């Protein structure tokens, strides 16, 4: 089975190039994940560089662009891919080496939405003898957004994020924003919505929905962004 992989080593390569690798068909078992195949290729060439860690799709390290689609290599079966398998770094962010990208802008956008629960006023002490009550129905509203693993598959497949990664929050950060806006324990909902109400931060989203199509966890950032937009509208009418 053939693989065509993007290579770039900044110290020695003037520019990136595609390199062809090959695995024996017998080595490619039916249940093999792409990460397993890449590990075998690294045994052929230990300089082939990509991130990975948990091997089960929960740490979010190994996002990469495979045959044009952003995926996590550890939960993508090789046999579902058309050969030659073309593997590139996820697009839109600077490449550090081979498939490893610099995700700083992505993380900065996440930080910019204040992704933490604010259940009390800043100087109010918290009552550790009691938990904050939340009904199963209120808790259910967090489903579909708290599970995000920050792999970046969504943001790096979003044309609006490619154009304005410094100004548009992007789908992952907005999904996180939605998670705190709808959390019944958070008392800063209004402030959050006001801060998000901006032509770039939220409204650069053009409903292209690449984010939802590429989310390896089956989440729906596009719907979350639309929900934020309608909550902003509702707040104005209130």
């Amino acid at each position, binding site marked *: 089975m053939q693989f065509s992989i993007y290579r770039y*080593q*900044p*110290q*020695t390569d003037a520019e990136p190039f595609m*390199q062809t*690798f*090959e695995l024996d068909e017998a080595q490619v078992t039916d*249940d093999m*994940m792409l990460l397993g195949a890449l*590990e075998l290729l*690294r*045994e*052929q*060439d*230990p*300089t082939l*560089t990509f*991130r*990975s*860690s*948990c*091997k*089960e*799709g*929960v*740490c*979010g*390290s190994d996002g990469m662009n495979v045959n044009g689609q952003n995926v996590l290599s550890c*939960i993508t079966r090789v046999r579902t891919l058309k050969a030659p398998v073309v593997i590139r770094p996820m697009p839109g962010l600077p490449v550090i*080496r*081979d498939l*490893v990208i*610099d*995700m700083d802008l992505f*993380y900065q956008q996440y*930080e910019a939405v*204040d*992704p*933490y*629960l604010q*259940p*009390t006023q800043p100087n109010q002490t*918290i009552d*550790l*003898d*009691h*938990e*904050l*009550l*939340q*009904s*199963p129905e*209120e*808790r259910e509203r967090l489903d579909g957004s*708290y*599970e995000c*693993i*920050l792999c970046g598959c969504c943001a790096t497949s979003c044309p609006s994020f490619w154009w304005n990664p410094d100004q548009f929050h992007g789908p992952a950060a907005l999904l996180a924003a939605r998670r*705190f806006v709808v*959390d019944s324990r958070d008392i800063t909902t209004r402030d959050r919505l006001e801060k998000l109400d901006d032509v770039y931060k939220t409204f650069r989203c053009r409903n292209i929905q690449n984010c939802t199509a590429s989310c390896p966890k089956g989440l729906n950032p596009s719907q979350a962004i639309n929900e934020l937009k309608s909550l902003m509208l509702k707040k104005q009418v209130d």
Partner: protein
Amino acid sequence: MTTQTDNESSRLSDPGQWDLYHFDAVIVGAGGAGLRSALQLAQSEQKVAVVSKVFPTRSHTVAAQGGINAALGNVSDDNWHWHMYDTVKGSDYLGDQDAIEFMCREATEIVRELEHFGVPFSRTDAGKIYQRPFGGQSQDFGASQATRTCAAADRTGHAILHTLYQQNLRAGTTFFNEAFAIDLVKDTTGQIAGLVILDIASGETRLLRARSVVLATGGACQLFETNTNAKINTGDGLSMVLRAGLPLQDMEFWQFHPTGVAGKGMLLSEAARGEGGLLRNGDGKAFMVDYAPNVKDLASRDVVARAIAVEVKEGRGCGLKKDHVLLDLTHLDEEVIKKRLPGIRDIALTFLGLDMCDSPIPVYPTAHYMMGGIPTNFHGQVLTQTAAGEPTPVDGLYAIGECACVSVHGANRLGGNSLLDIVVFGRAAARHLQATLAEHKASDFFDPELELTPVVQRLAHWTQAVQAEKPDANEPSDDDSIAAIRRDLQAVMQRDCGVFRTEQTLSELCDTLNNLQQRLHRVTLQDAGLAFNLERLEAMELENLMTLAFATAHSARARTESRGAHSRMDYPERNDQAWLKHSLYFRQDHALTYKPVNLTPLTVDGFEPKARVY
């Protein structure tokens, strides 16, 4: 080009070219323990940094599934004393009872604190934190099953790790992400003085001088072929401690989780059995009744893992090769599976193509957790021994979480106690450290000369061990490689030091390890680059694993009894008279010494060792 790369690489091992930073405290590791500690310290006046090999939310706490134990009593009556009893019994009486009492008493408050931080716990109808039954937990000192494990579906670790990272963002914690901790640094008086790290992206070496170092580097189950651990779990902190001349404790005790995906190793949470799942053998029999007549599938993990291994060994396994058993949830309501166990249902779907709603899942025990580690007291202070054999704290060094051995888990950890361990001792160590730092002026510690020779030599070795010519990528070479040595190490550890061990397997293991160690000394690398040089990183990680393999093999070979997760076929009984004590392993000459178990809790009577029946 080659010359330029050589010059650049030599900067790695030239301290004159390292960037220098000063901190009051440096925390190594950004899993739940490191982040809970960092959050506590961020609220103080101290200058603190966290060093993490990966971006913090990729730390392996993220993969914890089932939950965190606390006697909240939200579902059924409970109290911390019962929790303490269960933990002592689960540890096969090797746990230190002062530390266990401390952890179980802190549990309820610290879980509520996590809830206030934002953890999206599942909820009861009354709006409280949802709790589920887990193995080895009881009401009224063993009388009936307790319901103590607080859960966010089956993604509790993810929920806790992300929440702690989020609160650290709020607190403004300083992070060095994708930075590999190479070694502790002492000054010429022998005092811990900081840490040398490698910035993975740039390949630059950095020296962090610090009054205190907190190790929170997690476990090391990458030692075994089949494991539930992430690639990053290579025991870096433990190995640093051994190289600093300090001991590791109870390294013979490794937990094999009963229900890993057979042949692959991914974890299927104990929550599956907590919610009602059953283990069946090749005859379709729910066999746990033969091993734990009272609590059956919810016995302690060591008991269930051994039961599965015995069923398979005696020919009652499932599948063509009869090499696994089945985890059966098909009798449960589909809604329960979809709501309470969505993550593990996904794992079975992804890796096996099986939906646990209508198909039993092949499982087999898989290396999961390290009960041993860096010896500490319950303030997180690292302990060593005086010449007279007395435990004594190492000034300026702390260890928390899986890399530490407090010991709250003894010879076997209960499910739901590791997430508790990381937050309780993460906070406790930070509080102790805060108090200590407040007594000193940091500048007093930054003047003495540093002893950098060992770390410089290690770096120099791995920058020089690079092949002159890069071989053709498509021509597999006959030469040895990091990948080949790692694979052989994992295979031999699994074979000779797995669920069952004997004198013969362990003495063979010691010989094989010597051989692997020599291969590692000789191996050359192909990657001469600075930026994101994974091969060099993996070489240093493998060095760390190798050190721990020796610690494990020698500690296991010496302990001629069976206790908790350490099962010696040639010594099948627990022997309290000879072995109710902790092992301490030193790297020098593979020396072993021992120290007594603490049987005196803080405020209640101790639990005397008894036969362990579930």
